[in-house]
C-alpha cells in the first residue's frame, strides 16, 4: 500500500474554528422574521385517560395563532420504529409524566405559555406500573398496546442467544457463580437542549431544521404523520450540541409538532426545550436487572454462562427492542464458552420512557458481565486480567453465537497493552492489603462491540461529491455529525482517495434534498458506512479525473503518477490538479459523482438465538485506578487507561476525543448519574440534582489504539464512539472492590452504596416535575 497522506495523520476538525469563535448557529440561535414560538401542554399524570381536551380557550388568548392535538395528524400521529406505539401528541391516553398532549404556537414564548395554561384538559388517573418486576403480573395495569397474541400487553420483547445447555455445563464446573446486578437509567445530558424549527414552503410543504441524529428518519416520519408526499418535506441539519443517542424520537416528535403548526399558520415556528422540559420529557438509557450464572474449571477455563436480564422500556418501545437485542448479543462478554444462554426481556411501565443511549444495551450488560467475570476470577484464585487473557476471543475463535471470527480481533493485544500501561501487576499487588481510611484499588474490564447495525436491518450509506467552479469540492453524506467528528473523517477519506488537500473539501451538513438516504446515524456506523460511501464517491470522481489527466498528458492510465495534488505523466512534467479539472470540463465530463456502500449481508435467527450478529467487532480493555474514602464512601478515579481496537484510526485527534469523552460518561454512569422515578415522577429535573462529571471528577485518561484492520472498513477502520464508554463503569466497580473488599453490584456506586452497602430511603414527590413543567 502506498504511504497514506491524510488518513491517520494530524488534522483539525472541519468545524473547530466556527464553533470556538461562537459562529456556529444551533437551533436555538436561529430566528426568522415572523417566527412563532411553540410550547407543549404536558401530562402531569403518569398514566391517565384523556377525558376532555378543549383547545378553544387557548385560541382566544392574545398572541396565540394555532393549537394542535393528535386530531391534526394522520392516524392520530402514530409513529415509531420498529414498534409503532408512540404519538407525536398523546391520543386518548397518557403513559408518562411529561408526555406532550397539545402544542401551541404564539407570537411570544409568554403567549404560548398562557395558551398552554388555557387549554382545558381533564385527565382521569389510571393505576400505574412503576416496578418492572411486576409489569407482567396478571393484574398489572395495561401500559403497552393491545396484542394479537395471548401475551401480557406490558410484554414488549424477549431476545435470546442459545448455545448448548449452560446450566448442565455449570453443574459440572469446579467453580460457580450466581449473582445479581442492576444498572439504573442514565440521562444523555447533552448541553444543548432539544429544539426544532419549521418553515412553510410556497409549494405547501414544510422545511424543518432539526438537530436530529437521523435526518432521513425524521423526513420519513414527517411525511407519514403530516400525510404529505415526500417531495414536500425537507429536513436540514444545523450543528447539534451533543446527542449520544438522545436526539432521535424526541426530535421527530418536536419536528412534527412545529411542522404542523407552521403549515396551519403559514409562519415559521420554533420549539426549544428548557433543561427541565428536556429532562422530564425525553427518554433515558434503560435500567436493567441482571442475574448471571457462570462456571469455570479450577484452572480458570471459562465454560458456561447463563444471563437473564429484565429491561424497562418505560411507556413506549422507542428503540428498546433493538437495545435489548444488542444487549443480548454482548451479554456473555468477549469470551469463549462451551455453552451459553441469554434471555433479555423488556416490558412496559409508566417510568418515563427509555431509548437509545451510547452503547445501546452493551453498556448495561457489560456492567453486569464484567463484574461477574471479575468475581469468578477471584473465586478461581486468578488475577482478573490473567483470567480474561486466558478466556478472551482470538482470531479463529467461535463466539457464543456460532460466528467464527476470521479477522480483526485485537482483544488480546488490548489486554496486554493496558496491563503494561497501567503498571497493573505492581499496583494489583501493592493495593492488596490496605487498612487506612483512604484506599486505592485497580480494576479491569474487557469489551467487544459489534460494528454498525448488524442484523438489526439494512445497512447502507451514500455520499455525493462534486467539483465546484472555484476548484473546491462539495461532499455530502446522509449521516450527521452531532459532535463525533464524522464530517472530518469523511473529509480525510475523500481527500486521500482523490489525492487532494482536505482544505479543498467542504463537507456539508445533511439536507434531505441533496444528500443520499443513508439510514440512521446510530450504532457508531458513520466511519465504516459513511466512510465507505465517501470513499466510493471520491473514487468515482477520481476515475473521471484520471481519464482527463491521461488525455491531457497523452498517456495511458497506468502511466499516471501523483506528486502532491498534481498529475505526472511519462514526460515527468507535473500538471496542476486545476488544469486537469479544466481539461475534464473541456472534454465534457461531469465532475460530480455518487458513492453508495452496502454492508455484507448477515443473518441472525431470532427464534433459535444463533447466527452472525455483526460483520466485525470493536475490542477494548480499560483499567481504572480509584481512591476510596472509607469514612465517607467518596470514590475518586485517579487514573484511567483505555486501549481500543477500532481498526485503522482515520482521524486520531477525534478518535482520542471519543475515548476520553466516552470514559467520562462511563465514569458518571458508574459513580454519580442517578435517575429516580417515584411513582412515575422524575426527581432529577436539572443539573443541580442530576450530576454529571466535571473537570475535577475526570482524571487524566491515557488512551492507546491497537489497530487490527478490518478488510471491509474504509482503510481498515471499524468504529469508536460507543465502545469507548462501555467498559468504563465495570472497570471502576472492579477497582472499588479491589480497594474496599466489598462489591457494589448496583449502579451507580453512590456514596451510600459504597459506604453502607445499600441505599438510604429517600422521599420523592411530584413536586419537581410539576414545577419543572411550568418554568
Amino acid at each position, binding site marked *: 500500500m502506498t504511504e497514506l497522506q491524510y488518513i491517520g495523520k494530524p488534522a483539525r476538525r472541519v468545524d473547530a474554528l466556527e464553533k*470556538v469563535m461562537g459562529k456556529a448557529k444551533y437551533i436555538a440561535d436561529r430566528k426568522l422574521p415572523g417566527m412563532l414560538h411553540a410550547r407543549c401542554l404536558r401530562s402531569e399524570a403518569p398514566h391517565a385517560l384523556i377525558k376532555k381536551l378543549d383547545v378553544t380557550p387557548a385560541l382566544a388568548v392574545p398572541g396565540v395563532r394555532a393549537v394542535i392535538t393528535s386530531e391534526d395528524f394522520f392516524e392520530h400521529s402514530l409513529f415509531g420504529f420498529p414498534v409503532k406505539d408512540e404519538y407525536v401528541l398523546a391520543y386518548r391516553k397518557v403513559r408518562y409524566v411529561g408526555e406532550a398532549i397539545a402544542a401551541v404556537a404564539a407570537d411570544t414564548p409568554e403567549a404560548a405559555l398562557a395558551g398552554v395554561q388555557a387549554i382545558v384538559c381533564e385527565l382521569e388517573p389510571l393505576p400505574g406500573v412503576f416496578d418492572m418486576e411486576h409489569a407482567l403480573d396478571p393484574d398489572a395495569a395495561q401500559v403497552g398496546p393491545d396484542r394479537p397474541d395471548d401475551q401480557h400487553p406490558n410484554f414488549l420483547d424477549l431476545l435470546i442467544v442459545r448455545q448448548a445447555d449452560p446450566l448442565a455445563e455449570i453443574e459440572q464446573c469446579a467453580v460457580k457463580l450466581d449473582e445479581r446486578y442492576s444498572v439504573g437509567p442514565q440521562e444523555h445530558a447533552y*448541553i444543548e437542549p432539544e429544539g426544532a424549527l419549521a418553515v412553510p414552503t410556497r409549494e405547501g410543504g414544510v422545511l424543518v431544521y432539526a438537530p436530529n441524529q437521523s435526518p432521513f428518519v425524521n423526513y420519513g416520519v414527517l411525511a407519514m404523520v403530516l400525510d404529505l408526499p415526500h417531495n414536500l418535506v425537507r429536513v436540514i441539519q444545523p450543528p447539534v450540541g451533543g446527542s449520544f443517542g438522545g436526539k432521535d424520537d424526541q426530535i421527530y416528535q418536536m419536528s412534527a409538532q412545529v411542522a404542523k403548526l407552521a403549515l396551519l399558520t403559514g409562519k415559521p415556528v420554533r420549539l426549544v426545550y428548557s433543561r427541565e422540559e428536556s429532562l422530564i420529557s425525553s427518554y433515558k438509557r434503560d435500567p436493567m436487572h441482571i442475574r448471571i450464572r457462570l462456571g469455570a474449571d479450577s484452572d480458570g477455563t471459562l465454560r458456561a454462562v447463563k444471563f437473564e436480564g429484565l429491561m424497562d422500556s418505560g411507556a413506549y418501545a422507542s428503540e428498546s427492542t433493538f437495545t435489548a437485542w444488542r444487549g443480548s448479543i454482548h451479554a456473555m462478554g468477549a469470551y469463549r464458552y462451551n455453552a451459553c444462554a441469554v434471555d433479555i426481556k423488556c416490558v412496559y411501565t409508566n417510568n418515563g420512557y427509555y431509548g437509545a443511549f451510547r452503547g445501546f444495551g452493551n453498556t448495561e450488560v457489560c456492567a453486569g458481565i464484567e463484574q461477574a467475570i471479575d468475581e469468578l476470577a477471584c473465586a478461581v484464585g486468578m488475577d482478573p486480567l490473567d483470567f480474561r487473557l486466558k478466556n478472551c476471543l482470538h482470531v479463529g475463535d467461535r463466539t457464543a453465537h456460532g460466528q467464527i471470527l476470521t479477522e480483526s480481533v485485537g482483544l488480546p493485544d488490548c489486554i496486554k497493552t493496558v496491563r503494561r500501561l497501567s503498571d497493573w501487576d505492581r499496583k494489583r499487588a501493592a493495593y492488596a492489603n490496605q487498612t487506612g481510611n483512604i484506599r486505592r484499588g485497580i480494576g479491569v474490564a474487557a469489551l467487544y462491540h459489534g460494528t454498525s447495525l448488524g442484523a438489526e436491518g439494512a445497512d447502507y450509506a451514500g455520499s455525493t461529491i462534486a467539483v465546484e467552479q472555484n476548484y473546491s469540492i462539495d461532499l455530502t453524506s446522509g449521516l450527521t455529525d452531532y459532535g463525533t467528528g464524522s464530517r472530518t473523517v469523511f473529509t480525510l477519506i475523500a481527500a486521500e482517495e482523490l489525492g487532494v488537500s482536505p482544505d479543498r473539501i467542504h463537507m456539508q451538513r445533511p439536507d434531505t434534498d441533496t444528500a443520499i438516504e443513508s439510514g440512521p446515524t446510530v450504532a457508531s456506523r458513520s466511519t465504516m458506512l459513511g466512510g465507505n460511501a465517501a470513499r466510493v464517491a471520491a473514487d468515482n470522481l477520481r476515475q473521471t479525473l484520471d481519464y482527463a489527466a491521461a488525455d491531457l498528458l497523452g498517456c495511458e492510465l497506468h502511466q499516471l503518477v501523483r506528486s502532491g495534488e498534481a498529475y505526472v505523466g511519462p514526460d515527468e512534467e507535473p500538471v496542476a490538479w486545476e488544469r486537469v479539472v479544466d481539461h475534464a470540463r473541456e472534454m465534457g465530463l461531469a465532475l460530480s459523482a455518487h458513492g453508495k456502500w452496502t454492508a455484507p449481508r448477515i443473518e441472525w435467527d431470532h427464534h433459535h438465538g444463533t447466527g452472525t450478529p455483526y460483520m466485525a467487532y470493536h475490542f477494548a480493555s480499560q483499567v481504572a485506578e480509584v481512591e476510596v474514602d472509607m469514612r465517607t464512601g467518596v470514590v475518586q478515579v485517579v487514573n484511567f487507561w483505555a486501549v481500543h481496537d477500532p481498526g485503522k484510526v482515520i482521524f486520531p485527534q477525534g478518535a482520542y476525543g471519543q475515548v*476520553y469523552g466516552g470514559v467520562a460518561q462511563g465514569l458518571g454512569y458508574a459513580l454519580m448519574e442517578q435517575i429516580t422515578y417515584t411513582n412515575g415522577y422524575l426527581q432529577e429535573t436539572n*443539573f443541580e440534582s442530576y450530576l454529571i462529571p466535571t473537570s475535577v471528577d475526570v482524571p487524566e485518561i491515557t488512551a492507546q489504539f491497537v489497530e487490527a484492520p478490518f478488510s471491509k472498513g474504509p482503510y481498515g477502520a471499524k468504529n469508536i464512539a460507543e465502545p469507548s464508554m462501555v467498559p468504563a463503569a465495570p472497570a471502576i466497580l472492579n477497582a472499588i472492590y479491589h480497594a474496599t473488599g466489598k462489591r457494589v453490584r448496583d449502579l451507580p456506586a453512590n456514596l451510600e452504596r459504597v459506604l453502607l452497602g445499600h441505599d438510604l430511603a429517600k422521599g420523592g414527590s411530584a413536586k419537581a416535575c410539576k414545577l419543572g413543567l411550568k418554568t
Partner: protein
Amino acid sequence: MKPQLITLHINGRTHALAAAPNATLLETLRDLGYVDVKSGCEKGDCGACAVLLNGEAVNSCMVLAGQADEATIVTATGLGTVTNPHPLQQAFADHGAIQCGYCTPGFVIAAKALLDTNPHPTELEIREAISGNLCRCTGYGQIVEAIQAAAEQMVPAEGGAR
C-alpha cells in the same frame, strides 16, 4: 413591572435598551444577537452562558440585566475573529478541545478569566477554574491541554511581565 433603561458595553459596542426587571443578562444578550452565549440550564449549573462581566467570568443566567447596567461585557465572539482568533480559541481548535461545540464559548470565557489573573496556572488550577462548566463530549482532557498551551503561548517564556 416597568422596563428599566440600561446601557451595556458588549464586545466594544454600546447598547442602550429597555430591559424588563426580571430579564436575565443571558436572555438580554441573546435577544441582542449575541447568540454565542448559550443557554444550557438557566440555573447557574452548566456554565454554557458564561461571559466576562467587568473582567470576571459569570453565568449570565444568574445575573439580571439591570444588575449589569453600565458594565463591560465580553463574549466569546468578542475575543477574536475567524482570521485572527484569540490564542485560547486557536488552542481549543488545535488541541481537539471541541466536539459538539455547544459548551465551548463558555469554556473559552472561563479560561480567559483564569489566565487574566493567573497566567501560569497548574493543571489543578485549570481544572478547578473550569469546574463550573459542564462538557458532555470531551472528558475535559483536551480542554485542559488547550488552556495550558494557550497559557504558554500568551506569556513570554523567560521573565516576561504581564
